[in-house]
């Protein structure tokens, strides 16, 4: 089973990387108002059914893949 975890800086958390990207895009002539930079983790795993996989991915995010203090995450499981 393939799963993707998308980790983002939480709203309101300063994202200097995103700001630098936004400024650079503007310099290239792209009128971008805001950019936020996160991280993608693609996983290949076999935990049986989708519900169990989701629950386990949730735990992985809480324990390692994201820092819940500053990051939110989004889990997508491919059937």
């Amino acid at each position: 089973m393939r799963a993707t975890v998308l980790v983002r800086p939480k709203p309101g958390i300063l994202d200097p990387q995103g700001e630098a990207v936004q400024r650079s895009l503007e310099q290239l002539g792209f009128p971008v108002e805001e950019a936020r930079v996160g991280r993608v983790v693609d996983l290949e795993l076999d935990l049986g059914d989708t519900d169990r996989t989701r629950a386990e991915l949730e735990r992985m995010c809480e324990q390692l893949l994201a820092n819940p203090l500053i990051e939110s995450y989004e889990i997508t499981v491919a059937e």
Partner: protein
Amino acid sequence: MSEAPRPRVAVVVFPGSNDDRDAALAFEQLGADPVLVWHAEAELPEVGAVVLPGGFSYGDYLRCGAIARFAPVMAAVKQFAGEGGFVLGICNGFQVLCEAGLLPGVLRPNESLSFVCRDVALRVERADTPFTSRVEAGGRLTIPVKHGEGCYFADEELLAELESEGQIVLRYEDNPNGSIAAIAGIVNRDGNVFGLMPHPEHAVDSLLGSSDGALVLGSLVDAVRERLPAPA
């Protein structure tokens, strides 16, 4: 007259640590016996304090300190801290302590996105900790920083708690990284675990600009010495 006893201080070496030897040298100079402990060790030797040094443990993959907290030695460090042992995390060591849950909060990329490497002035908020007893409260220290991810963050609730519990030990006078409330170093609630971004081990000899770091590390040596059993 007998010489003051030399307490043993463990300095943990992770793959990617690079200030471990400087820390060991500094402690040696300050009258302690440093013991380098490889990250794969499951147990700590008999020591009075543990230091997590600066560097880039495990390449700082994922987030700074995020992988180091899984090192076998960290379970022993947690137990040591839980039993009231003194733990000092410097720079990357501070990041590891936060990721390991031994200190609250998190270190994020500097607001400027630039690596900062220079002496900074610090205000000592608390002089009654085992890490600052040689300094006066309200005193000023000059100690270098060198980091790309030293921007301390705590949400409103946590920050209020840190303030009310008196856990903020050091603040920057001129914030080099965007840390919230200019926080440079904090202790846990019990006061036995201390993390800071500046490098006291790089400021133990006035030949190198400042010896204020010796006040911090020396305080810890004093604290460990006080706990040594009285000589028979």
